[in-house]
């Protein structure tokens, strides 16, 4: 059986939901971060699927942009995480609910 567009979309939706639920449920900042990446890649999957379905390359261009931004975000985000850990000796986001130490 040929893979259908709907299969990809369903997988993408599942991945996005897992990511969104993870961001809300997880307290560990690293885990939250990974969940965000998961949501981004779920969206990428949707782009690729539509790009292939419509035989249009634009969707693939968007994927590259998303990946670039995700890489930049990872660099910045990890930097922030390291700083927070140094200051609070904890990776629990609820411990960082106030800005002042």
């Amino acid at each position, binding site marked *: 059986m040929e893979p259908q567009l709907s299969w990809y979309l369903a997988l993408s939706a599942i991945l996005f939901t897992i990511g*969104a639920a993870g*961001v*809300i449920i997880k*307290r560990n900042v690293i885990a*939250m971060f990974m969940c965000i990446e998961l949501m981004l890649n779920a969206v990428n999957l949707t782009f690729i699927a539509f790009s292939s379905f419509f035989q249009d390359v634009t969707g693939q261009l968007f994927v590259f942009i998303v990946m670039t931004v995700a890489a930049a975000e990872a660099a910045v985000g990890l930097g922030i995480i390291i700083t927070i850990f140094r200051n609070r000796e904890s990776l629990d*986001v609820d411990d*960082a*609910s106030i800005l002042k130490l």
Partner: protein
Amino acid sequence: MENNLLSLIIFAPLAGAAINWFIGRRLRNEKFIGLIACGAVAVSTVVAFYLAFKAGGALRSTEPVFDHLWTWIQVGKFRADFALAMDRLSGTYALFVTFVGFLIHVFAVGYMHKDDGFYRFFAFLNLFMFAMLILVLADNFLLMFVGWEGVGLCSYLLIGYYTDKKEAGDAAKKAFITNRVGDWGFVMGIMLTFFLTGSISFFNKPAHGVTSALQTIAGMSAVDPFTWQAIFAGGVTSIAILLFIGAAGKSAQIPLYVWLPDAMAGPTPVSALIHAATMVTAGVFMIVRCSAIYTHAPTAMFVVAIIGAATALFAATIGIAQNDIKRVLAYSTISQLGYMFLACGLGAFVAAIFHVITHAFFKALLFLGSGSVIQGMHHEQDMRRMGGLKKYMPLTFATMLAGWLAISGIPIFAGFFSKDEILWRTWSAGLFSLPSPAWSKALWFIGALTALLTAVYMTRMMVMTFWGTERFREKHLDHADGVQGIHDDAHHDDHAIHEPQESPWLMTVPLVVLAILSTIGGFIGVSYALGSLVGLHPTNYIEQTLDPVVAKVPVAKAEGEPAAEPVWLSHPPQPTDGAPAFVSLDESPATHSAEEVGAERLLALVSVGIAAFGIVLGWIIFQKRPLLAMPRILENKYYVDEIYDAAVINPINAGSREGLWKIFDVGVIDGFLHAIGDVVKEGGRAIRHLQGGFVRAYAAIILLGALAVIGFFAYFGVHAMRLVP
């Protein structure tokens, strides 16, 4: 005729003020400051005389000298130029303002010697001259108002010159605030003038496309009816009344006179210059300038005459009971200003200006003389502590004698001619601005009674000051009960007894010059009836000069008939190329009926009798008993200040404090602002829980929001918001 020299008259004092303010304050050199200040006014004086008397000058032709500096405001039809004009009226005014001003400046250099604020005083004094000359030379109402406010400001600054004395500050505020009431009338009058005529200019200036507001009114065919309703009709009578409110404020007439006696808290040269000779006569000047308006408004003229006569008598009675030498002169000034308004109200505009001029001479003299006395007495102003000064200050005494005789109305002295002219014009006034012939006789009686009182109180002042026992040696208890005196200087705690001494020449020379002018100054306006009495036919210069620039009261016919159209002789002036200077009026005996001349002579005799009687009466009463107690009600100025306090000031204070402050400010304004603050505060308190700092909560909110948006479009379709066509 255009002549740019004209602006030098106003800008020389301004430059003097600037130099003294910026450079004089650093140098602190009395010679430099005095030289700059007097020099600036001297420049004005010389230029004023040159422009007035040169061939084709302001006083020698009927054409004014113009100086158009720039167009100040032009909005639609409204146009106000920064332009000066010297016609016969403003020329006459400029002459005596600059000349008397110069003498007073010189006097002040001696009087203010060793004062800490020497530079400040002269900067203000020069600034005053600048504003006063703008007022006089302005060619439109609005520029005149600039000068009007300028002199008000300088008056405020100079009354409050002694900043360490509370009464000086209070007096300055009182003067300023009382004048605001008058200014309201002036501004409203200007607006109404513009509304009715479409112009605020005094002169026709075809080159600039300006027509004269005064000429427009002069050209109106009918005069306003002589009824009280005319005042509120919004016509010419309303303009005249509003302008008179302004004049009453500046020239200290009932009911706005209360500031002038208190203004004596300023240094004496200020009292002489601003509060006697020049600024306070600005109201008279304005009314004469607007004579075309007044000759169309008989009701307004009637009001002016009544107020003037009432003020003259009222102030004279108060003047009798004052013990402060400057206060006597202050009330005398108010009284004399009343005379001038009386003359204006009866259409004798030229006589009013004549009295302004002679009054400037003798009142400046008397004030400067009192300043000399105060200086000689080491800053004592209470006449009860003077006496016998003629031995110590012979020159001051001699000059003040001239002023005394002039103001009392003794013949050959200046005051006699002008006062007699006013009294004669009052007696012979037509029915244009009076309801019945009895009124002119009643007003004459008030004027004559005032003349009597004037002679009495001036004699009292002279007797208390220069004759009698030398009371300054007496060890006086502090009689604070009756002393409402304002002490001229901060040294009044220095109660040691000094020998009085004559003032330095800087002060006595102006006194002598003014004494000469007070003696002979009246000869510029000798009327035909008096001149022919001694077989002479002297030219009545003042009459001939000013007659072409004032409007004439129409001669009223028999009762019931409408008054004739007012006669208007100027604006636009007739070309007088090559014509000799003074030929306008026919002074030949043919123009004067024998009856009139006889009546005028008789009346002059009566007024001389009144003056002499007043002096004798004053002499008899006060020579023996200079300290004779005066009626309490007079000494307390009819309690007018107290009445004003109770009727106006206290209610305003109470209303402001209890109503505006405690209810409106605290309740409404503060309440409104606090309510806004409270709403924001409580709202913030309620929704701040949304921002708890928990990242996961934020994520959940974003997610819910996204779901809501997606759900919305999923349910209603993408066209629900009409975003997609």
